[in-house]
């Protein structure tokens, strides 16, 4: 669990936004502390991107407020922009410029002098550095997008589905970089509908559904409190194998387990963790991934 005396890097209260009649983000309040990775997990259309847009000054909240690094997102967005990195959901690179030109342009916008080569190496992009972005595959472009969000060594990273469309190796490379940044004290706001990713990376996970945060806790707590841990018993029979799943916290379970152990020919027994997917289902009746 996070300590409560940590510095609040992101803070919102009743943050709200609707597009016409569509209430996209509905009075959400949360905070993210320094060095924390908050996983923002929810199905399509839940309001994840809209939240990122408000926190990064692309949309002005219609109700409530948000602060990043102590600056109000509506009042002082430029102060925030100096110190954050944003990885957009949709690819938005200059197609006719090369990878290097794209990245150097952003280095120049920040008025920095950064050697981009080490960053490119970390996501295995060095080979394509002088290729025009329009000639790159989607996955390669996504890696450029991620590198771009890191170009100013930001204190806060807003990553809107940063590993979407990547092969497992590239996705893991990016996940490792995110963890490394966290260790350096960077704060990360990560949206995803990949529950494995949220589970693996996040210090805390916020479940968002229809614009509302329906739960916010560490992945472990969410699973413990809301998920069912089970005991899976596999038995050998004449016809082959038979399986029985027992809910761990059920008072009947010890009795039944004993019965099985005594009477049957047990092949394997193991406890099974609940997944965030199951927890989300239980809370909202919806699946995360469609």
């Amino acid at each position, binding site marked *: 669990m996070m300590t409560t005396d940590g510095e609040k890097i992101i803070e919102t209260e009743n943050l709200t936004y609707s597009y016409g009649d569509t209430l996209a983000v509905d009075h959400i309040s949360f905070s993210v502390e320094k060095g924390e990775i908050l996983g923002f997990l929810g199905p399509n259309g839940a309001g994840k991107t809209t939240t990122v847009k408000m926190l990064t000054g692309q949309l002005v909240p219609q109700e409530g407020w948000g602060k990043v690094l102590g600056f109000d997102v509506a009042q002082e967005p430029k102060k925030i922009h100096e110190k954050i990195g944003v990885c*957009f959901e949709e690819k*938005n690179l200059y197609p*006719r410029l090369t990878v290097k030109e794209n990245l150097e342009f952003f280095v120049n*916008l920040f*008025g920095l002098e950064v050697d981009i080569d080490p960053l490119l190496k970390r996501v295995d992009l060095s080979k394509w550095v002088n290729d025009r972005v329009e000639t790159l595959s989607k996955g390669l472009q996504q890696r450029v997008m991620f590198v771009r969000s890191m170009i100013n060594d930001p204190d806060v990273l807003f990553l809107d589905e940063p590993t979407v469309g990547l092969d497992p190796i590239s996705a893991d490379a990016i996940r490792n970089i995110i963890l490394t940044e966290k260790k350096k004290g960077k704060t990360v706001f990560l949206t995803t509908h990949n529950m494995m990713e949220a589970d693996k990376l996040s210090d805390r996970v916020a479940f968002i559904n229809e614009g509302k945060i329906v739960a916010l806790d560490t992945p472990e707590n969410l699973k413990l409190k809301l998920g069912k841990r089970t005991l899976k018993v596999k038995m050998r029979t004449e016809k082959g194998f038979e399986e029985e799943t027992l809910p761990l916290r059920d008072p009947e379970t010890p009795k039944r387990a004993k019965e099985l152990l005594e009477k049957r020919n047990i092949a394997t027994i193991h406890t099974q963790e609940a997944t965030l997917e199951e927890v989300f289902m239980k809370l909202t009746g919806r699946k995360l991934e469609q």
Partner: protein
Amino acid sequence: MKASCIKAITRKDAVAAMRNKLIVLGLFAGVIFAVMYYVLPSTVEETFTVALYDGSSSQLFPPVSELEMEGIHIIFFTSGEEFEKAVEEGDYVAGIALPENFDSQLLSGKQPTITLYFKSDVPESVRTSIEYFIQLTIEYVALGEQPIDIETEMLGEDMAGKHIPLREQSLPFFLVFALMMEMWTISTLIVEESAFGTMRAVLVTPASPSDVIISKGIVGIGYSLIVVVSILILTQSVRGNLPVLFLGIFLGAIMAVSMGLFLGSLTKDILGSYIYVAVPMLILILPGMFIFVPDISLSIVKVIPTYYLANAFGQILNSGAGLVGVWKDFLIIAGFDTVFFVLGVYALRRRFS
């Protein structure tokens, strides 16, 4: 506003523009215009068509067939009304009107007055040669002792110096055309930022919408200068009052940039933006085209801002005008520039925030 951001965006846009085939093609417009310039005639037409009015059917004035000589073509009128109309509508370089009593006056040894009508854009040299021609004719009539008075009248507003070879007349048109083409460059660069979604990425850095707008303006003005200067150099037309000429070019470039900013704010669709630009661009290059149809009534064209630009370029390049001659045009252009610029920046800021 941040200088480092403006510099970075300007540099990026200059490179991005150079990778856009259509924009690069636009840079070569200067070469195309120069070729067209050299194709156009470099001298003024040498044959003058003159209208002759003789209401009293003079017996003494020689018949037209005997009068025609190299370079002068005579059309004979017996109706005064038709003659006046023809001369006024400008179908003729000059009109020669014999008085009613030409014969009787001449016979009685008096001095008949022949009136010569000239259009105001007829240059001095043409006027003298027509007067000389009349002189010769009268000598022919009176055998050297002509007691005739010649009266010269000018028609229309003073447009001295307009009778210039087509080639030189076309120059202001090419310049206006080249400048207005930059509308397209600017609007394309802006629409692309929206269409590619890159604008959003730029705006979550220290850069502001103003930085983006200013940078696009700088790139647009830079491109205009390249095209316009290449036209002037290729046509060997770097002449006249250069500071005033470049002030005019600058004002024209601002007009194109402002229009480009405004038009760029209208759509996020790259192909759609071409249509948005095409119509205003055609309207704005229209005044330059009237140079090729000189005698059309110009008043309607005067509502198009580039009329003043074309006019100022003509004055500076072909009539040696300085600031005194064109300041009114400049003032009007600057007025249009201000309106378009405010409109463009307003529309874009709304779009980007």
